[in-house]
């Protein structure tokens, strides 16, 4: 058990939790959180991979930095869409989820 293995395994678990959360949740905000969690899992696996050499491989670090910035952009846009939808239609669920239950 070395740190890269530990964090890569945790990353895989976090990724799967996020993916399941995205598939199962209905509130759009929770889906956005779930996708962010899933992204964190992906990045954990990638950085853990880079840590297998010493000094670490910098390319995955650069990729993850890019990924983090892209993720925050997408999240900001998603939240703006969500609040606008909620303002216009009074619900934070996508139309197909609203009448279930």
């Amino acid at each position, binding site marked *: 058990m070395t740190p890269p293995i530990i964090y890569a395994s945790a990353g895989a678990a976090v990724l799967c939790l996020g993916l399941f959360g995205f598939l199962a949740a209905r*509130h759009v905000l929770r889906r956005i959180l779930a996708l962010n969690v899933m992204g964190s899992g992906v990045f954990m696996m990638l950085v853990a991979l880079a840590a297998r050499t010493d000094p670490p491989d910098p390319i995955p670090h650069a990729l993850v930095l890019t990924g983090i910035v892209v993720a925050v952009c997408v999240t900001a846009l998603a939240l703006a869409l969500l609040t606008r939808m909620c303002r216009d239609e009074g619900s934070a*669920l996508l139309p197909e989820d609203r009448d279930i239950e």
Partner: protein
Amino acid sequence: MGPSEWLSMVMVSVGVFFFIAGSVGLIRLPDVLTRLHALTKADNVGLGFIVLGLSLQAGSLLELMKLLLLWPLALLASSCACYLVAEATLLQSRRGPGARRHVR
């Protein structure tokens, strides 16, 4: 270990004690205001001790100054945050219970 390292260990341990006390308070105390009290009082004292303890081990003047800068900044931020959280709690309690709704 020399005396300064012993002193440093003691100070850090005291700091950790205060942090633990603050965390216990956060979990055990009944409402927001008392929890805030536990967090800001105990944790700030704890952080002070830890910074003092670590500054005894600082390798250079620059490192020492960085460490000593930490405490006032954290104090400033946590006191302001404490004030804001307390104010928000007060406003919400005036608005009455059930301000947060469970609607879908």
